[in-house]
């Protein structure tokens, strides 16, 4: 339409003067504020649910008109005990007797965050390249499967064994990422559908492997593999009192690596260009197919490394549940982290903390661990829809709203 052309023609990119009010407005319009408020809103809604589920509140409600204050007190108690339990479970256990007990929660958070960092990095790369990879779950499983086999069936010298096992995890994941990549590049098959389906194929392959003697403990028919050898396991980095393992450091290095790849390398340049405008990328001589396959394969490898954090780190033996729900949670991590490595690491630590808080919630506040899932998904929904958050907190709308696509 002719008007469109003229509209862009007149679009001025001038910046507003930086006086205080403009600054305040900028903060109110900023993305980071939306992120913070999204977390706050989710915690508030979570609080309502906690109140709803609290037997004490239910009881106090019974005589609400006689002593309304009791209801509010019970509600406050329920929420504060839940969130303080979460704090103790995820950050610092101030009720702990020893330093180790007090310090353990934060290390648990980092341990839980490790697979989320790996998988979230890969998914974030995909999002930036315009690819919707729902398949981290399956990629983790295949990676963990291969890594486990190398870990328990092969005998290799200590350091080498770990390196080979980690590589096997990455290769397994890479293979499972390559398939949707090549199908997308060659036939245009939508990666969302293919990766969803491959998750189930992977789960069944894992189930099949665990039903075979090669993957079972000698003399056992349980669907559980032998433990990986110590030589193939990530060493614990804070001693035996804590589960935090070397995988966390590797994950941080991977984050730096992904940052360098995406921002400072020619490969990442192509990935970004293909994601933002494949037609222009192709016209400028880039090979779009190779970029798609490349991103999916690297993302798969990272998800495979997430599998390594499980199999060579926390779990040590292969079961059907080896991937937990990390692969799906990583999607929310990548979205929350805006697909950037630093954001992904922070989001993974936040969600790792929510996970680590689960047991404390269950034991100390008598609440189902699943409140964490609720808070987690609410955060992502709110962040995806900044206008909703602004509406909830009555913030001014920004002059130019960018719609979140990935």
């Amino acid at each position, binding site marked *: 339409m002719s008007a469109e052309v003229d509209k862009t023609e007149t679009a001025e990119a001038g910046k507003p003067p930086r006086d205080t009010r403009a600054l305040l407005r900028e903060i109110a319009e900023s993305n980071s504020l939306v992120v913070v408020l999204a977390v706050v809103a989710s915690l508030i809604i979570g609080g309502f649910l906690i109140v709803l589920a609290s037997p004490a509140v239910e009881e106090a409600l019974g005589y609400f008109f006689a002593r309304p204050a009791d209801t509010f007190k019970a509600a406050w108690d329920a929420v504060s005990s839940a969130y303080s339990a979460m704090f103790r479970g995820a950050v610092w256990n101030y009720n702990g007797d020893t330093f180790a007990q007090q310090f353990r929660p934060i290390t648990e958070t980092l341990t839980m965050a490790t697979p989320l960092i790996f998988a979230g990095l890969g998914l974030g790369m995909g999002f930036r390249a315009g690819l919707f990879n729902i398949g981290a779950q399956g990629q983790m499983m295949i990676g963990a499967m291969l890594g486990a086999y190398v870990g328990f069936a092969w005998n290799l010298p200590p350091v080498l064994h770990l390196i080979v096992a980690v590589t096997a995890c990455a290769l397994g994941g890479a293979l499972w990422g390559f398939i949707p990549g090549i199908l997308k590049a060659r*036939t245009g098959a939508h990666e969302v559908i*293919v990766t969803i389906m491959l998750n189930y194929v992977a789960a069944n392959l894992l189930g099949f492997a665990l039903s075979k003697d090669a993957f079972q403990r000698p003399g056992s028919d349980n669907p559980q593999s032998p433990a990986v050898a110590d030589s193939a396991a990530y060493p614990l980095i804070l001693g035996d009192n804590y589960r935090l393992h070397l995988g966390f450091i590797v994950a941080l290095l991977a984050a730096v690596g992904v940052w360098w790849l995406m921002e400072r390398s020619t490969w990442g340049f192509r990935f970004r260009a293909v994601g933002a405008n494949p037609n222009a990328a192709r016209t400028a001589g880039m090979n779009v197919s190779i970029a798609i396959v490349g991103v999916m394969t690297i993302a798969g490898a990272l998800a495979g490394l997430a599998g390594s954090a499980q199999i060579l780190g926390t779990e040590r033996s292969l079961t059907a549940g080896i991937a937990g729900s990390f692969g799906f949670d990583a999607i929310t991590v990548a979205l929350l982290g805006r697909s950037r490595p630093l954001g992904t690491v922070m989001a993974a630590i936040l969600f790792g903390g929510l996970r680590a808080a689960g047991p404390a919630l269950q034991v100390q506040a008598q609440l189902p661990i699943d409140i964490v899932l609720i808070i987690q998904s609410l955060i992502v929904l709110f962040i*995806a829809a900044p206008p909703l958050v602004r509406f909830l907190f009555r913030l001014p709308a920004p002059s130019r709203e960018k719609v979140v696509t990935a």
Partner: protein
Amino acid sequence: MTATAVEAPEAQPAAAVEKPLSWKMPLLLGSVGILSFIFFGLMTPGGGATTTFVLSRSGDLFTIPAFDVPSQPVAIALTLAATALAALSAWGVRNRRQFGVWLPSTVGLLVVLAVLVWAGAGKTATSIQITGLLIGTVVLAVPLVFGSLAGMLCERSGIINIAIEGQLLAGAFLAALVGGAVASATGSDAVGAYAGLIAAPLAGALVGAALTLFAVKYWVNQIVVGVVLNVLVVGLTNFFFGTLMKNNPELNRAIGLPDLPIPLLSKIPVLGPVLFDQNILVYSMYVIVAVLNVMLFRSRWGLRMRAVGEHPKAADTVGIKVNRTRVRNTILGGAVAGFGGAFFTVASGLAFNKEMTGGKGYIALAAMILGRWSPKGALAAALLFGFADSLREQFGIIGTAIPSQFLAMLPYLATIFAVAGLVGHVRPPAAEGIPYKK
């Protein structure tokens, strides 16, 4: 002048070049035929081994006696017939003759029969229970049918619905909850179950409403919303399962919808128990599929919905409210999936359990794609997946060399093949997933 104009173009209409031949179908059928001939034909035990098929059940109007077939010859004959049909399809491609969908379907049927013969060969203690297999097929297909209809309703109007899983789960949950509450209030399990069935669509519709809020109002990527809503519903149902239901066990009991055998029809051998001895949910499924199939293609509502999903701007210029259509369809779709979710609890006589839908929502998505976004197709694909599932259960009883995991993979692999264009072309509604902005 250095360059010459090209020879006499009499403004001839651009010539249509013949489309290249596609050998995908014959190749696929051929490999299926030959592989099944090797694995299920030749490798079926010979030497007089037989396979027993049982068709009738006690209580049927008349009995069809169980019969034995000589395993190896029959298996070989069936697989050879399948291979011959593959050859026919190759001949068809070469001579540009089109065969209908009956050809691949027949190949499939022949191979399945051969597999059954093979599985039951030489097993004197067990037999192939055809009726049981088919009942299982229909029953296991129920949530898939509702789920894929839900997906279809949304996608035909342009909204991608990945949240089918969550809608099923929400429906299952609310059906159990309301069912339990009403049952304990009225003292009648049946009344409770029906009340649960009525409540289930509300839960699904609520998830659909959330999807449409984010997709239509805030233009959030629909896949993101769908994925996240699935997590949210898992979280919510688990949470209430662990609190509300745990604290009040009467709210989550195993209550079931009564079977409503249709007089006479239900006594027909095979067909009777499979089709006409079911509960109200299954009968509603027949009706909903039939009605939607007519409505989608032959009603004003269906025409407008499809127009909105294909070319929203065109719909807008003839006065159709695009976003209103999308909102309504998405909520309706959610309700249909929620209704189907009742299958897991009140329609199966089970109490609610954590994440009890177990990924059926994603298989429903696959069924919708394989069924090419039509109710009829969705039904066929869902029955196919239900059959694969039912076969897995049967084989579990008989004991065969095919690992159950591979049978379980079939729906997923079939879908990957379909979207990769290896079996025909699937074309989603053109405007799917794109927010409509004026």
